[in-house]
């Protein structure tokens, strides 16, 4: 492997890219549009609190009250205590115009104190996704904070009653845009290399460009690495744009730290390789596009890009966890929002392993020359 050859190839990649206005548009303007659009939609609803109907079956136990107080302190939900019976709760929410509801079950406090699991029941009106989504995020965020506290499980832990204190769940209260930024960065880490690599893998083969390159000393790994370097650079630019626009226009709270770097490097590494592998498996550009879409689309929506995976129905959550992008976005969430280093490190380990395997497979299976 020679750096000079990677550099030479990288120059070609950069020039090709910068001279292609469409590619440039999609890489740089698209993230701005995306964050602008979602930011405008959700910050509008975020400025007014989402109405949330709550039924507390734990009979105002201190823990449940603390939990509701924490929700209330976010000022992102406007809690209304309702008295609907559990059997018709969902129907009553609908007829009273609520888009989101929450049931705190009997035994919430004892379960929490005894470290046994307890299910909150969330209700969301799918036709008011913005409001419901906002409520879900806030509840999830607060629940995460409680769970972190409960998980310490030792005598030195603070009393449960102090859980709503802001420092327990991170530095601040989250808005939807805060969650959206790691999600959208993940979205562009996925889509930008995947779509173009799938296309390149099949069209370069069809046009004979790979054959021409096979006659030079450039190796397949060098060729792939120069693409990876380019997409890492592009990811830094798009992430910068998204964070800048999110913070500047929509007052997103983003914690920038070095922990973000592994995800901005490993993410493109993984998806450039995966795109190449997908394009290699396909025989024609048409089937390549199809295979690319089959891989990309579920990941685009099920990895926590637009909505937190924890807000998914239970049967979908395991699906999310087999998708590589989930670990990229989860990792960035941990780093940018929750300061949960342990979990971020776990995500880094998963992505590194996947990236190494997929890179090796892509180099192994992608052929410069025709064996037939």
């Amino acid at each position, binding site marked *: 492997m020679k750096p000079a*050859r990677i550099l030479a190839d990288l120059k070609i990649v950069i020039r090709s890219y910068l001279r292609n206005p469409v590619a440039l548009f999609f890489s740089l303007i698209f993230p701005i549009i995306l964050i602008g659009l979602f930011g405008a939609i959700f910050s509008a609803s975020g400025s007014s609190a989402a109405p949330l109907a709550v039924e507390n079956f734990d009979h105002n136990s201190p823990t449940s009250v603390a939990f509701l107080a924490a929700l209330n302190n976010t000022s992102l939900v406007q809690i209304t205590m309702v008295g609907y019976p559990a059997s018709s709760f969902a129907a009553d929410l609908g007829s009273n115009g609520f888009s989101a509801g929450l049931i705190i079950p009997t035994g919430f406090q004892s379960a929490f104190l005894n470290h046994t699991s307890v299910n909150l029941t969330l209700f969301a009106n799918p036709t008011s996704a913005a409001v419901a989504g906002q409520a879900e995020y806030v509840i999830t965020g607060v629940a995460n904070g409680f769970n972190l506290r409960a998980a310490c499980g030792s005598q030195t832990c603070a009393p449960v009653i102090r859980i709503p204190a802001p420092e327990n769940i991170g530095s601040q209260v989250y808005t939807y845009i805060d969650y959206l930024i790691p999600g959208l960065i993940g979205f562009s880490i996925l889509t930008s290399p995947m779509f173009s690599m799938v296309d390149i893998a099949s069209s370069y083969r069809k046009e004979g460009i790979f054959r021409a390159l*096979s006659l030079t000393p450039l190796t397949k790994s060098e060729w792939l690495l120069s693409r990876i370097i380019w997409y890492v650079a592009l990811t830094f630019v798009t992430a910068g744009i998204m964070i800048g626009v999110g913070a500047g226009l929509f007052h997103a709270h983003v914690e920038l730290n070095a922990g973000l770097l592994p995800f901005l490097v490993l993410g493109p590494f993984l998806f450039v390789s995966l795109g190449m592998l997908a394009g290699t498996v396909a025989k024609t550009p048409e089937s390549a596009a199809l295979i690319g879409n089959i891989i990309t689309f579920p990941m685009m929506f099920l990895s926590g890009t637009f909505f937190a995976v924890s807000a998914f129905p239970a049967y979908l959550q395991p699906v999310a966890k087999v998708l590589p992008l989930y670990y990229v976005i989860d990792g960035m969430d941990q780093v940018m929002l929750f300061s949960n280093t342990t979990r971020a490190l776990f995500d880094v380990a998963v992505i590194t392993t996947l990236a190494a395997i997929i890179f090796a497979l892509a180099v192994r299976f992608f052929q410069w020359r025709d064996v037939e």
Partner: protein
Amino acid sequence: MANAVEVQGLAKRYGGLYAVDHIDFSVQAGTVYAFLGPNGAGKTTTTEILEGLRKRSDGTVRVLGLDPWTEGYALHLRVGVIPQDFRFFEKITPKEAIEYYGSLFATRPDPAALLEQVDLGDKANSRYDTLSGGQKQKLGLALSLTNNPEICFLDEPTTGLDPQARRSIWEVIRRLRREGRTVFLTTHYLEEAELLADQVSIIHHGKIIAAGTPAEIIKSHGQPERLVFQAGPPLADYLRRTLGVSATSHDGRVEVPLESSRDAVRVLASADSSGLPWDGFSTQQDTLEDVFVRLVGPMDDGALKTEEVR
């Protein structure tokens, strides 16, 4: 002199069909070798096997002493190749392309000089997607020279080029030969092979059906030199009777095959003394194209073209 290419029993099978059917040939170093054949004869398959772009089914192949498939990486440092239908990155200019190849091969080519050689100097800074077909071919040729190759594989380098562009490529091929490099050329243009090649092979249905210098091929597969009169059958009869030659007559022409050019004098003298009417005469000799058409048969439109036709 050593052979730059050695091929023995080379075969390429697709399913039950042989695209290349156990052929043998060798190319002497420092010569121009032309590989001729109609479309689908096995030309490009053979060339791609020699270049290391395609795996052979059978036989042995050595290019500069190396196996092109298993030792392709080492071989490619020493050979220059224009694949058929050469394509490159659309937004890159010829100058950048040469710098790119120079970096990959760790050579330091002078882009301006190299592009001038292939008559592409004025397009040095035009993007690839704005070049004409001929200009793209010329860029392919320039790129195949960036590593200072010992042998160049040029697969139909002049197809689709205008006569002037074709001549500039011929000039490059002549110069490569003068510099002691080997050139392996496939072409549709028989005139091109006749002008440039030291050795020619004609491949048809995967088999080599004729090989040698252009003159040798014409001699062994073509009709002998002949004297042609504008005259009627009586002159043919007269010449047959008096000289015992196999003169033939058709369409107001009389043709007399010649053993040697000196025979022409004897035939002309006899015709002059015959008292029979005849008008102008000429000597005719088969070209490589005549031989090719005789061996391979007339081909589809586009498969066989000459300079004049273009």
